[in-house]
């Protein structure tokens, strides 16, 4: 494994990473703000590229750091192998119109599904541990924690009616 980084005038910073098996991954943080990732398979002549926004790049980075066991579209399952293989799923949901204006208490989320809303993201602001009196708005992103069955129940009983 060999990593080298260099600054290219006018372009930005380049990180090149060669795996032990001889494949190459290169990442360019361009001065335009986008991030380009190139992969070149060993023995191949032309590389393939993906262009990402900083948010997308960070998401990819999260996947690569390996905290995630099973990555659904917007869902993360974490396994604590020391605690009898405890598995916890965290899922993000976008609040539809049908749930807007209702509070967590009104919806009886815990009683009906067993899942808990641990955070809500509204217009780029995060509300951590919202109280029971918290009222949703349409377009909020809710972070829900629970077992995967509880998450499924949350989706079917609370969001889809």
């Amino acid at each position, binding site marked *: 494994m060999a990593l080298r980084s260099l600054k290219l*005038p*006018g372009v930005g910073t380049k990180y090149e990473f060669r795996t032990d098996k001889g494949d190459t991954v*290169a990442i360019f943080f*361009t*001065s335009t703000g986008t991030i*380009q990732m190139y992969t070149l398979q060993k023995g191949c002549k032309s590389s393939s590229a993906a262009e990402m926004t900083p948010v997308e790049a960070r998401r990819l980075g999260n996947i690569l750091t390996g905290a995630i066991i099973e990555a659904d579209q917007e869902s993360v399952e974490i396994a604590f192998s020391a605690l009898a293989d405890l598995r916890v799923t965290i899922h993000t949901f976008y609040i539809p119109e049908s749930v807007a204006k209702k509070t967590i208490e009104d919806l009886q989320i815990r009683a009906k599904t067993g899942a808990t809303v641990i955070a809500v993201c509204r217009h780029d602001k995060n509300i951590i541990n919202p109280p029971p009196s918290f009222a949703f708005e349409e377009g909020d992103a809710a972070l829900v924690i629970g077992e995967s069955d509880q998450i499924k129940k949350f989706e079917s009983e609370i969001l889809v009616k």
Partner: protein
Amino acid sequence: MEGFIIALFVCLVLALISKYLSVPAIPFYILAGIVLGKAGLGIVQSDEISQFFSEIGLLFLLFFMGLGLKLDRMIADPKKLLTAGIIGLIVDMGIGFTAAYLLGFTLIESFIIGTAFYITSTAIVITTLIENRKLMMKEAELIIWLEVFEDIVLIAIIAILSSGDKDLLYFFLKIVLALGVMYAIAHYGKEFLVSILDRDDETPILFTFAAVLTTAALALVFGIPDSMMVIALGAALATTDPEAFEQHARPFKDVFLVMFFVFFGVTINFTAGTDLFSILILCLLAVVSKFISGMLIGITIYGSAMSGLEIWANTISRGEFSIALAVLYGSAVVGTVIAALVIFTTIVGAFTAKYSTWLRRGLTHRSRRKALMHRPHSSR
């Protein structure tokens, strides 16, 4: 003034179109200037205001070039770059100069056309490399550094051209002195400069704008070319916090440089006595000469004609620096030639850069097929 607003609005529309099609915008701006100006409809005239804005555009272009000259970040293999750079310089400038001279331009005009012919557009070349996702190509790094090499050559040429008819020793003494003062300010005032740049109110942007304009004004007072001094200012400030200066200077550069391109187009006058034939010859040669230099570089550095093809395909576009030369030193005739050169090469360059991979693939396929047909065991 109305003309200025019209030009601004047309540019905005063109910028949107060029970004949508992801092609370089510079030829569009010049064409818009030609259509709106003297040579076309005559709606927009060049006046004091537009000249002032164009000049600011040019100053900020040169300031940016200076900021890019950070000498501490050097290429891994300077010898390779030097070889490639010198091949390009000799071939492209040689062909451009000779062709212009043979077509009847004066010695100094031919020199300016030759330089404009040689200098590629850093902005276009680098953006197309990024947009066409070619940064990982093995030739990309060399191409990027070649742009820096060309910048350094351009600075030397500006120094030579602007010294022109003056007392050489006295002239260079003044430049060296001014450079020394600027580096001293950047060196001893570094903490103060950085503290200004770190503020998040209007001071950093005001400071950047004022620094560039003041330097240009002072240069004129002392009889030194302002173009040289602004580049030197950029190079001196690059030792403090170049990223911050780039960030604060970018809005000025972006807006005023567009004005610079448009009003360059506006002042183009086809009745100035250029024949279409020599323009056409020079445009075609501009593409051909980059092919020759690209091939030579590809074969010397990488031992492969395919690399040469890739270098050629990505370095055809001439742009901002060629126009800057035309505005600073060129006559009306030279201006027309360079305008045509820039428009022609940027259009050809946009296509070759986009489709070079296809071109390469097509060529390798053909040779592979030939190789297959000549396989010894196929004729048993």
